[in-house]
């Protein structure tokens, strides 16, 4: 197997649109969760979200912009940042060995929601001609491939909340097997339409507004947690064959070592300890690591009742008594749940945390749930200078558990 390294990173996120901004906000625990305003807020029981500050007009000309759902806008801009940092520049002979792998749970749902509003709300039969292109799940991957003339596989993964972790893992596999030289991989999501928010609300998964501080409403592993907060954005990395990266003198930010993937078959939404534990074990095996090699974990950590208890139990099952000594970070507490982009955002934040020798904090954690009794790095970042190797968990409705194993360069 070939070794696979990260040579570029790009984000459009609630925490900022550069790696520096996003990482600093995560490090300092600056929450991007805030109340929604306007008409949409009146229709929601708890109008909260983590929105990205993003001016699309500065990135796209009007004709192109009219073809792009907000999720694709995020993905394209994040990919540009990652590729600019990586300076990948494959030659013509290499271009069909560079692929694009994007995860998204809801694709162009924001555009589709607007289309439905036209059709059903306004009773108009005139739908925008570009709606199919905006709504299709593979739009982001297609636009990135076209913009950079990457002629290898352009693939889209939709496994709900683990979509981008799957995209990263599948890209890793192809480079590790020697099929590709490099890949642009990650996820994008723009789920903050009334339709999506109401759908998530109907599932009773969304957090209540914290009465004293709305930005503290997402409280993973806390006794008073009440659910997740939806977020939007994209995180994209350039994965590259290590030999190629070294040969061209590229800056290496980390190494993706392996990837575990399992499916719960017990329930469409309820997470399962055996399934999550099996995914972590599969990631360790794929990376040729032992549990003792893991220095910290980026938790799926949604702040829902079911996830946090189950994930805690699964970590204990894999790591045994040592589980209590592993720093576990749940950064969704500050950037919300980006659904199909969540795993990729948590991956790039974790890679940077390893590089900086810290464990990122889980914010808004004053008192842990008694069933969540591990070290979640509550409320402030912690030095973790000896930390070299991490797991990042992403668990999804539909039962797709994806775990990435990686280390600092």
């Amino acid at each position, binding site marked *: 197997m070939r070794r696979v390294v990260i040579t570029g990173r790009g984000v459009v996120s609630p925490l900022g649109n550069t790696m520096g901004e996003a990482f600093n906000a995560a490090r300092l625990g600056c929450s991007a969760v805030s109340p929604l305003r306007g008409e949409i807020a009146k229709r929601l029981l708890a109008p909260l979200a983590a929105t990205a500050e993003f001016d699309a007009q500065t990135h796209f000309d009007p*004709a192109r912009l009219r073809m792009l759902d907000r999720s694709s806008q995020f993905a394209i801009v994040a990919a540009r940042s990652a590729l600019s940092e990586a300076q990948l520049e494959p030659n013509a002979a290499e271009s069909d060995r560079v692929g694009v792998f994007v995860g998204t749970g809801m694709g162009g749902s924001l555009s589709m929601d607007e289309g439905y509003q036209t059709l059903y709300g306004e009773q108009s039969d005139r739908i*925008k*001609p570009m709606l199919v292109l905006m709504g299709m799940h593979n739009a982001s991957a297609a636009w990135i491939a076209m913009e950079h003339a990457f002629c290898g596989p352009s693939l889209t993964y939709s496994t709900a909340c683990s979509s981008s972790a799957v995209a990263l893992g599948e890209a890793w596999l192809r480079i590790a097997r020697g099929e590709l030289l490099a890949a642009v991989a990650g996820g994008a999501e723009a789920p903050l339409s009334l339709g999506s928010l109401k759908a998530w609300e109907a599932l009773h998964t969304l957090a209540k507004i914290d009465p004293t501080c709305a930005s503290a409403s997402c409280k993973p592993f806390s006794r008073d947690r009440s659910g997740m907060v939806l977020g939007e954005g994209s995180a994209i990395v350039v994965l590259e064959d290590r030999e190629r990266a070294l040969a061209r003198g590229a800056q290496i930010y980390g190494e993706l070592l392996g990837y575990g993937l399992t499916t719960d078959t017990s329930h469409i939404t309820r997470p399962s300890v055996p399934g999550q534990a099996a995914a972590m074990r599969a990631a360790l095996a794929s990376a040729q690591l032992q549990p003792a090699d893991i220095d910290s974990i980026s938790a799926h950590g949604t702040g829902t009742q079911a996830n946090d208890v189950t994930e805690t139990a699964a970590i204990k099952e894999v790591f045994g008594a040592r589980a209590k000594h592993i720093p576990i970070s749940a950064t969704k507490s500050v950037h919300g749940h980006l659904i199909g982009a969540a795993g990729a955002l948590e991956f790039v934040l974790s890679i940077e945390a390893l590089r900086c020798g810290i464990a990122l904090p889980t914010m808004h954690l004053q008192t842990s749930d008694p069933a969540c009794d591990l070290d979640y790095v509550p409320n402030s970042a912690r030095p973790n200078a000896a930390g070299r190797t991490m797991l990042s968990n992403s668990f999804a409705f539909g039962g797709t558990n994806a775990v990435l194993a990686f280390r600092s360069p």
Partner: protein
Amino acid sequence: MPNTFERLRAILERDYSVAPDAVTPDAGFESLGLDSLGLAELLFTIEDEFKVTVSRDPVELNTVADVVGYIDGLIAAQVDALADANSLASAPNLEPRA
């Protein structure tokens, strides 16, 4: 009031950043940067701006002059249809009494 050509030129400048000088009657849409998708979107905009309904049947529209002629034809057909409707409304009722 600007004529159809001038209004179309303004749309092309606004929505597709086409330089006004490039919009001539003979200009092809490909040369103005509009492919088949762009033309489909332009027809949608034309429906909004000119208050016409574009046929769902294929129409051969290659140049600016083609589209100007097509819009003018749709507007003329609407005027004719309105005139017919008005004349019917004002015609004496010739229905036989029951």
